[in-house]
């Protein structure tokens, strides 16, 4: 087996194209058993490295095995009575993918060209005489712009200080249950009293995340407290 670097391939189709090119295979007549065998070896190899990436490869491996089995069976026929090659869909997918992979080379080339040019700096220093009359115009905005604006606004809350995040042993779900149970007893809860008993910082954090989840689900509402370091949690009925 060839030594293959994991990051070399963008996905299972990319890997198959590599096998096809390397072994000078005819894309219209892929030797399914041979390629499946090699593909599986590769999948076993990456499974050890990166489970998340492996998922897509495992899916393709099962497709290949399925094709392999169908190759052994009598050919199905389409409505015109012609034999269906079990590999047809795969071939189509490979060709389609190859088109765009080639185009990404064009884009890469254009990217290099663009990196050689710069746009003008310090526009802001230009002399401007601007009349100060404003008119709000929400021209051509869609609900998706609205959603995007919301996302951005929330993102702008990023703080500058960084902390290390340690492994979490309690779950948000547990804390959701905890909060809802607490609210059963007392429909208006102060955040600080809720977390009063908690000794580990991480438990408080998870509780806070759980609160946000519940707010998002509309199960609870949050409101200001007279103490600026605290806030009040209210049970809502529409949840």
């Amino acid at each position, binding site marked *: 087996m060839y030594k293959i670097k994991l990051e070399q391939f963008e996905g299972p189709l990319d890997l198959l194209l590599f096998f096809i090119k390397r072994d000078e295979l005819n894309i219209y007549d892929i030797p399914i058993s041979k390629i499946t065998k090699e593909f599986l070896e590769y999948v076993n190899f990456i499974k050890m490295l990166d489970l998340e990436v492996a998922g897509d490869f495992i899916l393709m491996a099962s497709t290949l095995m399925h094709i392999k089995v169908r190759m052994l069976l009598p050919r199905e026929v389409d409505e015109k009575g012609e034999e269906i090659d079990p590999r047809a869909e795969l071939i189509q997918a490979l060709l389609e993918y190859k088109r765009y992979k080639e185009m990404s080379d064009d884009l890469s080339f254009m990217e290099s060209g663009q990196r050689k040019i*710069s*746009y*003008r*700096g*310090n526009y802001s*220093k*230009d*002399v*401007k*005489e*601007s*009349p*100060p*009359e*404003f*008119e*709000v*115009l*929400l*021209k051509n*905005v*869609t*609900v*998706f*712009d*609205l*959603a*995007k*604006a*919301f*996302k*951005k*606004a*929330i*993102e*702008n*809350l*990023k*703080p500058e*200080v*960084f*902390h290390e*995040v340690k492994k979490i042993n309690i779950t948000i779900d547990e804390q959701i249950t905890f909060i809802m149970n607490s609210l059963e007893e007392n429909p208006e809860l102060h955040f*600080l009293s809720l977390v009063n008993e908690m000794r580990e*910082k991480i438990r*408080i*954090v998870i509780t*806070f*995340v759980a609160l946000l989840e519940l707010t*998002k689900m509309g199960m609870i509402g949050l*409101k*200001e*407290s*007279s103490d600026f*370091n605290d806030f009040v949690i209210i049970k809502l009925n529409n949840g």
Partner: protein
Amino acid sequence: MDNIYNSVIEGLIFSSDEPLPAAEIIKAVKGIDGEDIQISADEIECCVDELNKNYDEKNIAFQIVKIAGGYLFATKPEYAKYIGYLSSEKSKRRLSQAALETLAIIAYKQPITKPELESIRGVNSDYILNTLLEKNLISITGRAETIGRPLLYGTTDEFLKYFGLNKLSDLPKPREVEEIMRDEDFIEQKQKIMMNLIEETLENESAEDNNDTDTAE
């Protein structure tokens, strides 16, 4: 100094974000073509004068000006009114950006108070709120039960009509927005925000504890 550096100097000043000091130009030229290239601040000054003479002769709309920090390009003042016309158009657009952001927060968080809104936006929002009220895209829906009983804002039917929505629940779900944002970076940031909030709370608490102890003594 070779005359070929005229264009290099021109290009460097053009693309610099800040006024570009002669020392920086010298650094770039020597950095690329070698330390033994002869190029001085005076020569650069000469070269800039020559470039400007050139622009004048050709009636070009911009020139290089020397300000405290170095050289920079500027459009000649006679074109300011045209530029100003477009830039005021642009500030209108910026304003509508602010309006969009405010509207988005109100739509998703309603009913919401002005302090809540401002704490998310990080800026005073009086002007925008008034404009949106005027345009009838939002309205006052009541008062919060909290101290000071601040006004609550929500969106109007006009808002729904404006965005072609039948009802509020037709807005893209926060879950979908969440999905868009669910890159690792964001989750990490979110966790960091929480950590900070909690730490501040804890710090304040322990500070209070200490105070208590102090007075007790």
